[in-house]
């Protein structure tokens, strides 16, 4: 494809001139977004980062709490299951499983809600 109809091989100066003319045409045709938009975006991000920093200890504590609850439940089941589980009737066992599931689901829901980005 011949892009140079004058049939003159471009030298560096021609190329530089052409690039700069094109750059001038580009900047004439397209104005950058206003500075206020950038400031607004930076401010919004700064606030979000500040909020994330503030929430980090809470998130750590929630995660630790969730892990503690999970492993405590596992340990309790391991410790007492041989003695207590056979003594539970079907309704009691179902209730115990339902309660444990509810507690774990609640923990998960709390964690999930705290990680949701704010509007």
């Amino acid at each position, binding site marked *: 494809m011949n892009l140079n109809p004058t049939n003159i091989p471009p030298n560096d100066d021609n190329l*530089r001139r052409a690039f700069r003319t094109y*750059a001038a045409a580009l900047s004439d045709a*397209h104005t950058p977004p206003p500075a206020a938009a950038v400031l607004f975006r*930076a401010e919004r991000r*700064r606030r979000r980062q500040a909020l994330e920093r503030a929430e980090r200890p809470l998130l750590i504590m929630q995660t630790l709490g969730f892990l503690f609850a999970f492993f405590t439940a596992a340990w309790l089941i391991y410790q007492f299951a041989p003695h207590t589980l056979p003594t539970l009737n079907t309704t009691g066992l179902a209730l115990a499983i339902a309660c444990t599931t509810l507690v774990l689901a609640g923990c998960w829901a709390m964690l999930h809600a705290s990680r949701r980005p704010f509007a």
Partner: protein
Amino acid sequence: MHSSLEHAAAPATVLSELAFQRLYDANATSIHSYLLAVSARRDVADDLLQETFCRLLLHSKTAARLDALELRRYLFRIATNLLRDRWRSGDTTPFPDPPELATNPFLENSIDIRAMLHHLKPRERELLWLAYVEGMDHAEISAATGLNRLSVRTLLFRARNKAKQFLAPARPSL
């Protein structure tokens, strides 16, 4: 020494807005043109320009030590890194809709830079733009792109030759 950026360091404060406006006015147009020429997409150029200045504001402690020239290179460095992040993430749709000017009455010799850029790789576009439009030397391009200085020299040489091939006239068949 107080650089202009120290006043623009905290984007939230009202006091910084004037300084930031000056900084933005001085650099935004050239960086926007660079992003537009390399990405060839208006929406991407707008977004990356905002992101470039946004990152500058959020990393103001590093940037506060820089003078105006270094700050300009730093901005080009951020913009270049953002362009590369975009390509790495897979958003590499180049030139879906040429952003510019099918014919430009001001172009001497009718050299169609836009069509030539279309045929070059993104890195070649970056290097040629920084060298020819921004007038940067190898060291400055190295600082602005993060490439080794010797690599810049080699890559720029190749890009220049490639550009000239695209712009060279077709040989008449014998």
